[in-house]
C-alpha cells in the first residue's frame, strides 16, 4: 500500500515538473527549475480570428500568454524560435458544452408511476431546498479534476478550452471554464464560476416531482419566484443553500440544455418570463423550425451528431422506420447551415457525438450542406468566448490572451490538413508532431557490400510499412520511430536472399549497418528523395453533398412543404343538408359561405364570385367537432409527483408534431381540449387548441379562451393500482375517497388564506409606518385563486356518485364551482344535483366495466343527464375514438332516443358552452369561426366520412388531397429507402433498422391498443 502511494507521488512530481512556473505556495521537492515558455513562432500564416489572417507572421508567447502577433516580426532576445514556414496558426477551439473533468452521475429511476411508491421529499441531507432536482449549489470547479486521458482526445481535435459542468438536475449550478492543459487544477481553471446551467431533466434525482416536462417547467418557474422572495430573508424559510446559490449565479451566462426544437422554445419562454436570455443547447433538429429558433434571439449551442444510416434492405424492417426518422437522417447535416442562413449565432460542441473522433468528418459534412468555414471557426472560437464574456482571455490570437493555439499544415478544416501541435496555456501538446516534417516518401538506399554498391528505392508508407523497389517491388518488415529504423526484406521474390538492416535517423538521411543471409556485413545509407502519394483516410468519411428533400411542417408525414400549406379561402358549400345548431335547425338544400376565416352566411342561393365552390349535393355540413377531453399534441400529460399540481400547464408543452392532429382532422375534429391526466386530485391547467396542422405550438392555441384546469377523483388519484396483494402500497396522500375530499378542502383553504394574505399586503403596501412584506408567490395557489375568482374553470374527472356529490358539497362550502364533470359515468345518478350546482357533463357514450368504479356506467347516461336538463357533451379521451366522435354522438340516439340534432350538439355546440367558447365556435352562425365539416352522409351514421375539415376557413383535411399526400409519403419513403440502401452499398456503416415507436399519452385511466409500434407514455422508463 505504502509503495503504491509513493509511486503515485512520484508520477505527480514528474507531472508537475513539466509546468511552466512553480506555484509559489507549493514546496519544491528538488531543485528549482523556473522557465517562462518564451517562444517565437516565425514565418507562419497566422489566422488571428475568422476574419483576420496574417501571412509570414510571428507569434510570441511567454508565461502561457500571447505577447505579440505581428506580420513579419522579430524574434525577441531570449526566446526560442520555432520556424513555422508553410505552417498555419489558429486559436485553439472552445467547447462550451463539455463535461471534461467533472464526474457525471448515473441517472436513476425516479419518476411517477401509478404502481410504485412515491418519494415526496428530497433525499439529500443538508440545508438545501425541497426538490432534489434543483442542484443550483453544485459548482463544477469544486469537483473538477484534470484528466489527461479525456483532455487529449479533445486537444487532438484542436480544442484548448472547455466549459465544463455537471450534467445533473434541472438546475445544475455553475460551470467552470478550464483549459485542456495537463497541469495542476489551480492553473487550469481559467474561470471558476463561468456559467449557470439548467435543463428539463431531473437527472439523478430520485424524488417523484417533477415527473413530466410541464412539471420541470413549473419547478423552474417557481424556483425563480422563490429565489426572488428569498432575497427578502424570510424567517419562515431559514437558510436555503439552493436558493442562495441560485441567486448568486443569476449574473453569469445562463445555459439551458433543451435538446430539441420545441424544448428550445419552452426554455426560451421561461427565460422571457423572468428576464433571462438563455444560451440554448439544441438537439440537432432545429432546422425543422428555424424561424421559431430565430425568434428566440438566443445564441445556440449545436451538437453535430447526425443519425446513422439504417439497414433498410429488408422491406419488413424498412416499413417500421418512419418517414420522419429517415428525413431527419437526410437533413440533420443541414442544421448548422440553416442557422447560418437564418443569421442565428451559435457555438459548436462535441457533446452528444457517438464517437468524438467523428467531429471533423461531421463538420465537413455540415460544410457540404451549407455551413461556411468562417462561421464554423467563429462558432468554435469567438462566439463561445463572447457569450461567456471571456473573449479577452481566449478565442483569438491577440496579445494578452492565453497562448492557446494550433499549428497546422494548412487551412484547419481542410480534409488534408494535419494538426501538428496544440499549445495550451503556452505548453506544447503534440497531436501529430511526427508529421511536422513528414518523413514518408521514397528514399534512395545504397548498400556498401563487399562486391560494390547496390542501389534500391525504399517506399516509406508508414511507420510500420515500406516496400523495397529493385528488380521486384517487395514488402518489407519495417520499423520507424523517428530515431531508429529497421528493415528486414527479401529483395528478390525468387532469390532466397534476405537482408536485415538497422539504422539511425538523422533528419532526411539514414545510415546504418546490415547483414545478408550469407552472414556478410555491410554498411548502408538512405537519402530522402520525394514525397509519397497522399492517401485519404476512409474511416473519416463525410457525407457528400447532394440533393435533399424538403422540410415539412410539421415534420411528419402529411406535413406541408414550405409554400404548400393550405391557405385561408373564401369557400361556398352549395346545396347541402346544413345542421346549423341554431334555432333554424337542419336546413335542406342550403348553402354555407365562409369568408375571412369566419362564417359569412348560411342560407339558400348564396353566392360569392371569389369563392371556391364545394358541391354539397347529398352531403351534410356541420360545425367542426369539438373534443372536450383529449390528450394529443403534448409532450407530457400527467404530473403525478404530488396530489396538487395546479402549477403545471399543458400549454407549456404542446407538441405540434403529433400525427394525431392530422388523424383527428380526418374525423372532422377542429378543436381539442388537451387535458392533464388523472394522476392527482388537482391536476394541471389544460389547453384548448385548434387543429391547425402545420402550425407551431403557440399558433395551435385557441385564442381568447379563458382557461381551465383538470381535477380528478376516485381510483386513479388514490392510486388503487398501487398494491401489494390486497393491501395498499400507496404512500401519497390520499388513499381513500375520504382523503380526496380533504385534499380539496385543504387546497382551497390554503388558497383562500393566500388570497387574503395578498389582499392585506396590497392594502397596506405603501402606507406609512407599515412594513409590508410581500407573501411568497405560489404558482399552485395562484391557479386555485383564479378558480375562486371565476377566472379559471374546472373540468373534473369523476365516476361514482359519492365522489361527485362530495366534490360539489366541498365546492359549495369553499366557494368555488365545478364547470364540467368529465367522464362522469354515474352522472345519471346525481344529475339533479349537478344541475343545481350548474355543472356541465362530458361523458363517454358506452364505456364501462374497464375498472371497478365504472361497474355502474350505462350508455343511457348522456340521455338521462340531457333530459334532466344538463348541458352534455360526448368526449373521446382517446386519439382513435376522437375521429369517430360524430358516431359516438350517434349512439346517444340509439341509447336513450335523443333527437339527432341534440345528439350532434353533444360533440359540437355543447362542448363549446362548457369550454366558454360558444361565441366563437360550435354552430353555423354568421360571425363565428369558419370551423366547418362537410360529411359524405348523415354525420351520426357509421357511413359518414369527413370529406373536408375546415378550420378558420382553411381546408386542413381534404379527402382527395389526402390521397395525394399519401402518395407523396410513399414516394418520399421510397426515395429515402433507396438512398439509405445506396449508402450501405457504398460501404458506409449502417445500423440495424430502428423501428420508429410512437409515444401515446393517455389519461392513464384505461387501456387502448394502438398497434405494435405505439407505446403508452406510462410504460416508458421513468427518468
Amino acid at each position: 500500500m505504502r509503495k503504491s502511494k509513493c509511486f503515485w507521488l512520484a508520477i505527480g512530481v514528474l507531472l508537475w515538473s513539466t509546468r511552466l512556473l512553480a506555484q509559489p505556495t507549493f514546496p519544491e521537492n528538488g531543485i528549482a527549475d523556473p522557465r517562462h515558455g518564451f517562444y517565437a513562432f516565425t514565418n507562419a500564416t497566422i489566422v488571428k480570428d475568422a476574419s483576420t489572417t496574417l501571412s509570414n507572421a510571428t507569434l510570441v508567447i511567454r508565461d502561457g500568454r500571447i505577447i505579440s502577433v505581428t506580420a513579419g516580426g522579430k524574434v525577441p532576445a531570449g526566446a526560442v524560435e520555432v520556424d513555422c514556414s508553410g505552417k498555419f496558426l489558429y486559436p485553439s477551439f472552445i467547447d462550451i458544452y463539455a463535461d471534461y473533468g467533472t464526474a457525471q452521475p448515473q441517472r436513476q429511476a425516479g419518476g411517477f408511476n401509478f404502481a410504485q411508491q412515491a418519494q415526496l421529499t428530497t433525499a439529500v441531507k443538508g440545508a438545501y431546498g425541497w426538490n432534489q432536482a434543483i442542484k443550483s449549489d453544485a459548482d463544477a470547479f469544486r469537483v473538477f479534476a484534470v484528466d489527461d486521458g479525456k483532455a487529449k482526445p479533445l486537444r487532438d481535435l484542436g480544442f484548448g478550452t472547455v466549459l465544463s459542468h455537471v450534467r445533473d438536475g434541472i438546475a445544475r449550478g455553475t460551470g467552470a471554464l478550464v483549459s485542456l492543459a495537463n497541469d495542476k487544477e489551480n492553473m487550469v481553471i481559467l474561470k471558476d464560476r463561468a456559467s449557470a446551467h439548467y435543463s428539463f431533466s431531473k437527472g439523478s434525482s430520485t424524488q417523484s416531482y417533477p415527473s413530466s416536462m410541464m412539471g420541470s417547467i413549473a419547478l423552474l418557474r417557481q424556483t425563480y419566484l422563490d429565489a426572488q422572495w428569498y432575497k427578502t430573508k424570510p424567517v419562515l424559510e431559514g437558510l436555503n443553500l439552493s436558493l442562495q446559490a441560485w441567486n448568486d449565479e443569476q449574473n453569469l451566462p445562463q445555459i439551458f440544455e433543451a435538446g430539441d426544437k420545441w424544448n428550445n422554445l419552452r426554455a426560451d419562454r421561461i427565460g422571457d418570463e423572468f428576464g433571462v436570455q438563455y444560451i440554448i443547447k439544441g438537439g440537432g433538429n432545429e432546422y425543422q423550425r428555424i424561424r421559431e429558433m430565430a425568434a428566440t434571439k438566443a445564441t445556440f449551442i449545436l451538437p453535430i451528431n447526425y443519425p446513422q444510416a439504417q439497414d433498410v434492405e429488408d422491406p419488413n424492417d424498412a416499413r417500421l422506420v418512419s418517414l420522419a426518422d429517415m428525413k431527419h437522417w437526410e437533413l440533420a447535416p443541414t442544421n448548422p447551415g440553416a442557422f447560418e442562413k437564418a443569421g442565428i449565432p451559435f457555438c459548436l460542441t462535441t457533446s452528444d457525438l457517438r464517437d468524438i473522433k467523428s467531429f471533423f468528418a461531421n463538420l465537413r459534412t455540415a460544410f457540404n450542406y451549407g455551413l461556411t468555414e468562417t462561421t464554423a471557426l467563429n462558432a468554435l472560437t469567438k462566439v463561445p468566448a463572447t457569450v461567456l464574456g471571456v473573449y479577452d482571455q481566449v478565442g483569438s490570437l491577440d496579445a494578452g490572451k492565453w497562448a492557446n493555439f494550433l499549428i497546422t499544415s494548412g487551412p484547419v478544416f481542410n480534409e488534408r490538413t494535419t494538426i501538428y501541435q496544440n499549445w495550451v496555456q503556452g505548453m506544447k501538446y503534440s497531436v501529430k508532431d511526427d508529421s511536422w516534417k513528414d518523413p514518408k516518401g521514397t528514399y534512395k538506399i545504397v548498400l556498401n557490400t563487399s562486391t560494390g554498391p547496390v542501389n534500391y528505392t525504399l517506399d516509406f508508407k508508414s511507420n510500420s510499412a515500406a516496400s523495397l523497389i529493385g528488380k521486384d517491388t517487395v514488402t518489407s518488415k519495417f520499423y520507424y520511430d523517428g530515431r531508429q529504423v529497421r528493415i528486414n526484406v527479401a529483395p528478390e521474390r525468387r532469390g532466397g536472399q534476405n537482408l536485415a538492416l538497422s539504422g539511425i535517423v538523422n533528419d532526411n538521411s539514414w545510415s546504418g549497418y546490415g547483414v545478408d543471409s550469407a552472414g556478410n556485413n555491410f554498411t548502408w545509407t538512405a537519402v530522402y528523395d520525394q514525397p509519397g502519394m497522399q492517401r485519404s483516410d476512409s474511416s473519416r468519411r463525410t457525407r457528400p453533398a447532394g440533393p435533399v428533400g424538403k422540410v415539412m411542417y410539421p415534420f411528419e408525414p402529411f406535413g406541408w412543404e414550405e409554400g404548400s400549406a393550405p391557405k385561408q379561402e373564401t369557400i361556398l358549400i352549395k346545396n347541402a343538408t346544413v345542421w346549423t345548431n341554431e334555432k333554424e335547425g337542419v336546413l335542406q338544400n342550403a348553402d354555407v359561405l365562409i369568408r375571412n376565416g369566419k362564417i359569412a352566411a348560411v342560407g339558400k342561393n348564396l353566392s360569392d364570385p371569389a369563392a371556391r365552390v364545394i358541391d354539397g349535393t347529398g352531403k351534410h355540413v356541420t360545425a367542426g367537432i369539438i373534443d372536450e377531453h383529449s390528450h394529443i399534441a403534448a409532450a407530457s400529460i400527467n404530473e403525478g409527483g404530488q396530489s396538487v399540481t395546479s402549477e403545471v400547464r399543458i400549454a407549456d408543452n404542446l407538441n405540434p408534431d403529433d400525427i394525431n392532429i392530422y388523424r383527428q382532422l380526418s374525423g372532422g375534429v377542429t378543436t381539442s381540449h388537451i387535458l392533464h391526466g388523472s394522476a392527482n386530485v388537482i391536476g394541471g391547467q389544460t389547453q384548448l387548441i385548434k387543429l391547425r396542422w402545420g402550425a407551431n405550438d403557440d399558433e395551435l392555441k385557441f385564442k381568447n379562451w379563458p382557461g381551465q384546469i383538470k381535477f380528478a377523483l376516485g381510483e386513479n388519484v388514490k392510486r388503487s393500482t398501487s398494491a401489494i396483494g390486497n393491501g395498499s402500497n400507496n404512500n401519497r396522500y390520499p388513499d381513500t375517497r375520504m382523503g380526496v375530499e380533504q385534499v380539496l378542502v385543504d387546497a382551497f383553504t390554503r388558497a383562500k388564506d393566500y388570497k387574503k394574505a395578498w389582499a392585506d399586503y396590497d392594502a397596506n403596501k405603501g402606507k406609512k409606518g407599515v412594513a409590508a412584506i410581500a407573501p411568497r408567490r405560489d404558482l399552485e395557489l395562484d391557479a386555485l385563486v383564479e378558480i375562486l375568482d371565476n377566472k379559471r374553470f374546472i373540468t373534473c374527472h369523476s365516476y361514482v356518485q359519492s365522489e361527485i356529490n362530495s366534490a360539489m358539497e366541498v365546492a359549495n362550502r369553499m366557494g368555488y364551482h365545478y364547470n364540467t364533470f368529465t367522464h362522469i359515468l354515474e352522472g345519471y345518478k346525481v344529475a339533479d344535483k349537478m344541475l343545481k350546482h350548474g355543472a356541465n357533463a362530458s361523458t363517454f357514450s358506452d364505456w364501462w366495466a374497464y375498472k371497478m368504479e365504472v361497474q355502474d356506467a350505462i350508455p343511457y347516461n348522456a340521455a338521462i343527464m340531457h333530459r334532466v336538463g344538463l348541458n352534455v357533451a360526448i368526449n373521446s379521451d382517446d386519439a382513435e375514438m376522437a375521429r369517430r366522435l360524430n358516431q359516438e354522438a350517434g349512439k346517444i340516439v340509439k341509447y336513450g332516443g335523443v333527437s339527432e340534432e341534440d345528439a350532434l350538439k353533444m360533440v359540437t355546440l355543447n362542448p363549446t358552452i362548457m369550454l366558454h367558447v360558444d361565441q366563437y365556435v360550435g354552430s353555423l352562425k354568421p360571425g363565428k369561426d369558419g370551423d366547418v365539416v362537410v360529411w359524405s352522409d348523415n354525420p351520426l351514421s357509421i357511413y359518414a366520412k369527413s370529406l373536408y375539415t375546415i378550420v378558420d376557413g382553411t381546408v386542413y383535411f381534404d379527402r382527395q388531397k389526402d390521397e395525394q399526400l399519401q402518395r407523396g409519403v410513399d414516394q418520399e419513403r421510397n426515395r429515402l429507402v433507396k438512398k439509405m440502401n445506396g449508402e450501405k452499398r457504398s460501404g458506409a456503416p449502417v445500423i440495424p433498422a430502428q423501428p420508429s415507436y410512437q409515444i401515446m399519452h393517455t389519461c392513464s385511466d384505461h387501456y387502448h391498443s394502438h398497434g405494435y409500434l405505439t407505446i403508452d407514455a406510462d410504460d416508458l422508463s421513468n427518468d
Partner: protein
Amino acid sequence: MKKIVSSFFSLLLLLQVSAQETVYPAPKQTGTTVITNATIHVGNGKVIQNGSIVITDGKIVAVGADVKAPAGATVVDAQGKQVYPGLILPVTNLGLVETPSVRATSDVQELGELNPNIRSIVAYNTDSKIINTLRSNGILLANIVPEGGLISGASSVVQLDAWNWEDAAYKTDAGIHFRMPSLIARPRGFGGFGGGAGGQQPPVDPVKQGLEQVERMKSFFREAKAYNSVSTHEETNLKFASVKGLFDRKQKLYVHANTVKQMLVALDFVKEFNFDVVIVGASDSWQIADLLKQNNVMVVLNQMHSLPTLEDDDVDQPYKTPAMLQKAGVLFAINDEDGQTRGRNLAFNAGTASTYGLSKEEALQAITLNAAKVLGVDDRTGSIEVGKDANIIISTGDILDMKTSTVTDAFIQGRKINLDDKQKQLNERYKQKYGLKSPF
C-alpha cells in the same frame, strides 16, 4: 361477530350486483315460432325481402319469401324490421375477466409459457354482467379465449344464454392459441421528457430470441405429433394430448400475430404441420393478403377501430383492411376487442368496414358466417339457413349503424331470450327517480 360482519358484507355485495338476477335463461323451445314479413339478411351475402323463417326444436326448418306460417305457430311480426343471424364475437375474454383492474375478477392468464392443456370453458362465468349487454347489441355467440404465455390454452365457443358453462358450451376446446413472440427490435430507451441521449438496445436481439421461441414451439409440436401417433404411452403427457386435434384438423391453431414477419412465421405451421391456422390480430395482413389466401389461412381482424400502425400509413388503413382482404379472397372475421366497451360494438366495427369498401352484406358476413367458419361452427350457425340453429336477431334498422341499430328480439337455438341487462335496469331505476317517461 366477525361472522356477522362478513355475512353483512356479502349481503351488501349481493345487493350491489343483483341488478341482473331476474333475467332468466330461456327454456328450451317448444312448438313452432315463425318470424314473418322480415327483411332477412341471410349472413352469406344474400338478402330475402319480405320473408319468413320457421323455427322448430331450436332449428331453422324453413326460410324464404314464399314460406307460410304453419298453423298454431307463434308469430313474430318483423314488419319493417331487419332480421340477421346472431352475431358472433370471435375472440374475447368474456366471462373470464369481469373488471380488468381487479385481479380477483380475472381468470384469463395462467402461469407458465406452454399451457395447451388449459381450457377456458371451465372458468367461463355465465353470470358475468357483460354478457347481457352484448346480447342487447345482437351478439349471441362468443369464442372464449385464454391469454398469456406462448400457448395460452384452448378456447371454446359459447352461446350467451345459459345457467352454467356446461349449458353454454357450443363447441369446446376447438382452438389452441399461440401468441407469436414480437419479432421487432424494442425501442431504444426513450430519453424521457428531458430529451437526452437515449439508451442502448438490450444485449439480446429480440428477433433472434423470438425466433428461438418459435423453434421451441415447433419442437413441441413435433414431439406432440410423434406422441399422438401411438395410442399407448408409458407416461401420459397432458400437454401433448391436449393438442391432438391440431394434427387431424379437429382443432385450429390461432396464431396471434400482427406484423408481416410474424404472419410469415405463422405460415410455417401450415406448411410443416398442415395445421388449420387462423391469424388473430393481423393488423398488417393487407400487405400479404394474396399469400394468406394461397395458404388458406383465415384471419380475425382484432380491432377495426384502431389507429394506423405507422404514422406513415393511410390514416384510414385499419378501416380499409377488410376490403383489401375481401378483394384478395381471404376468409376473415371482424372482432371487437375494445377494453372499454367490452365487445358490444362488434356490429359497428363491421359497419366501418362497409363505409371503407365492403358491401353491407359482406360486412355482416364478417361477423356472422365468416366468424362461424373461423370457429368451425358454420354447420350449426352463422347464417339463416335451413338446418342451422335458430340463432337470430331482429333490429328496428340497419344493425351495422349505431344510428339505427336497436335489437328488439333475439333467439338462441330457437329460445326467445330476455334482452334486459343491468344497464337497462339502471336506466329504468333512474328514469323513475327523475320521473322521466319512456320511451326515450
